[in-house]
């Protein structure tokens, strides 16, 4: 991997939360790199820590341990301690636009904030021009500038959130389940729009979702997380055609698909049993052993190390 091609690197990242029920190890030591211009997919169920990864990269948390490096610069700090340039370059789109857009502000004010902070546009008139430009980019009518989020539908709210992320011309956008709350027809529109923007503006995406069928069509690399640790990372085709980790196989075999063709592509049915343990009580050894159909004795004692099986395909499992 050439160093100058890598936009974001995460090294040994740990984020623990102290609660009165115990320490929640939301992220417990993960490593990955995102290349410039690619879509890096992060998949996992609830409790996996995937959203926490995005929140750590955007600077919402103080890291317990580990480093985040963006374009060679160490940004392992909270956003209030980061430079304005970094804040401009990395943006985030949250899952639920109903709570990520302030219901008491108009779209204009929501879109104007990043412009004001980064001094884009010398006066109010120029800013309004830019806002109208952004609205057109996401195919919303320009009169939406006066509307509030509560007056527009879920899909359109999310488009405003995306317009907001694009306002500062960033290089990296973190997308935390951007279409999970939306209907499939609007999802298609937004995903196609995101892909188009990626090519037009040379964007890099960190795309988080639990919808594996969606991931298959958007990501170039996929990482799967379980209880705060990465189980497997692979280029998309390898990930889906040749999943190595038992959890990956279990997840892939449970996807609801709508055609026989797709049914063929799924790995052999692995019946998932049990519930996902709470991140407060992470089982000893390999955190997945309670639900793993292929567990061995060593899995209860030792956490497996990450091994690279072939180029770009790594897995964390005692089977290998």
């Amino acid at each position, binding site marked *: 991997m050439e160093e100058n091609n890598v936009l974001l690197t995460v090294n040994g990242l740990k984020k623990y939360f102290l609660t009165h029920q115990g320490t929640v190890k939301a992220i417990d030591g993960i490593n990955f790199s995102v290349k410039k211009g690619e879509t890096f997919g992060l998949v996992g*169920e*609830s409790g996996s820590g995937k959203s926490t990864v995005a929140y750590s990269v955007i600077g919402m948390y103080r890291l317990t341990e580990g480093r985040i490096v963006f374009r060679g610069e160490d940004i392992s700090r909270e956003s209030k301690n980061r430079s304005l340039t970094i804040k401009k370059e990395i943006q985030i789109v949250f899952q639920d636009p109903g709570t990520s857009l302030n219901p008491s502000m108009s779209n204009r004010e929501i879109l104007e904030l990043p412009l004001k902070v980064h001094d884009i546009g010398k006066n109010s008139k120029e800013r309004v021009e830019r806002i109208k430009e952004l609205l057109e980019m996401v195919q919303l009518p320009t009169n939406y500038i006066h509307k509030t989020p509560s007056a527009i*539908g*879920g*899909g*359109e709210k999310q488009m405003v959130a995306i317009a907001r992320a694009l306002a500062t011309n960033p290089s990296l956008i973190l997308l935390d389940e951007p279409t999970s709350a*939306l*209907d*499939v*027809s*609007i*999802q*298609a*529109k937004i*995903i*196609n729009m995101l892909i188009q923007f990626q090519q037009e503006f040379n964007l890099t995406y960190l795309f988080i979702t*639990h*919808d*594996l*069928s*969606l991931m*298959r*069509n958007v990501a170039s690399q996929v990482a799967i997380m379980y209880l705060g640790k990465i189980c497997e990372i692979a280029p*998309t*085709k390898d990930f*889906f055609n040749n999943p190595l980790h038992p959890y990956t196989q*279990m*997840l892939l075999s*449970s*996807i*609801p*698909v*709508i*055609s026989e*063709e*797709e049914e063929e*592509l*799924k790995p052999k049915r692995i019946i*998932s049993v049990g*519930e*996902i343990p*709470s991140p407060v009580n992470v089982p000893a050894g390999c955190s997945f052993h309670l639900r793993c159909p292929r567990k061995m004795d060593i899995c209860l004692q030792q956490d497996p190390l990450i091994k690279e099986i072939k180029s770009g395909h790594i897995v964390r499992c005692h089977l290998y």
Partner: protein
Amino acid sequence: MSKPLLEIKNLSIWFESFEGPLKVLDGVNMIVLPGEKVGLIGEMGCGKTTTMKAIAGILPVPPTIIRSGSILYQGEDLMKMNKKKSRQIRKKELSMIFQDPMSALNPVFTIGTQLHDIIKINEKKKGFIKGKSIQLLKEVLLPDPARILKNYPIQLSGGMRQRICIAMALINKGQILLADEPDTSLDVTIKEQIMKLLRELVGKYNKSIVLVSHALGTIKSLTDRVYVMYAGSMVEMASTQALFANPLHPYSKGLLEATPRLTGKGIGDGINGRIPEYVSPPNGCRFHPRCKEVMDVCRREKPSFFNVSKDHGVACFLFKNSRN
């Protein structure tokens, strides 16, 4: 063809609002046969939850205005009978599972108390209630039922809560179960477990189920027959197999094309436009402003249901002359 268990005829429901009445349901027709698993596909705002609530009788009046139509249960019109009788029938025959189990369960009472309250309504003999609670929890495959009865909803995971909601739905020996997006808030692996459980239980008790969802995969795995709903009326009805193999209505086609596929062949374009404003819905076919194959007649008249084959009907003028 056996007699329908539930039949909705030409249901039209409006809601009062500041800008004028919202003409949400525009002549909904639906049939559910005994023991049948019927799916209802529709996106947000199409009126499917309103339809479910109308069947369950939980629409608040005002602002609801019931303009016309009937909901027939075993031949009797629930809308025309007196309130007490319709409540009796619904209490005995209907159960409902909602989308978000956390809001369906009262956070300040234990599971045991909540089950007890519901069982008490249906079970006259006291003393059997705790036993019945444990039996129900076992049916939905919950481990250690005695401990769960003492837990509060917040102490349980999403999957477990949904199982409890399913258990609650099984309490009355009713024949029809309404499930409003029961899997939406669940993780992928848990989703699969819950749907499997639902399938087995519905088969075991020979209940009919109306499963509402906007996730096509869920509908495909659980149902025998499917309705597609758009902006207040049914636009297509077919056996599940027929719909997924050969969708006819442009909206159904658009939905299936927009669904991401595991094959990785990309995602369709989606459907342009948005759902209509119910204050002034489009004339004629409500889908016509978004339809790629729109014709003149679509703008003027609302299409009725044309039966293309024995078990496949579509409300679209493109199929007007394809009657079998």
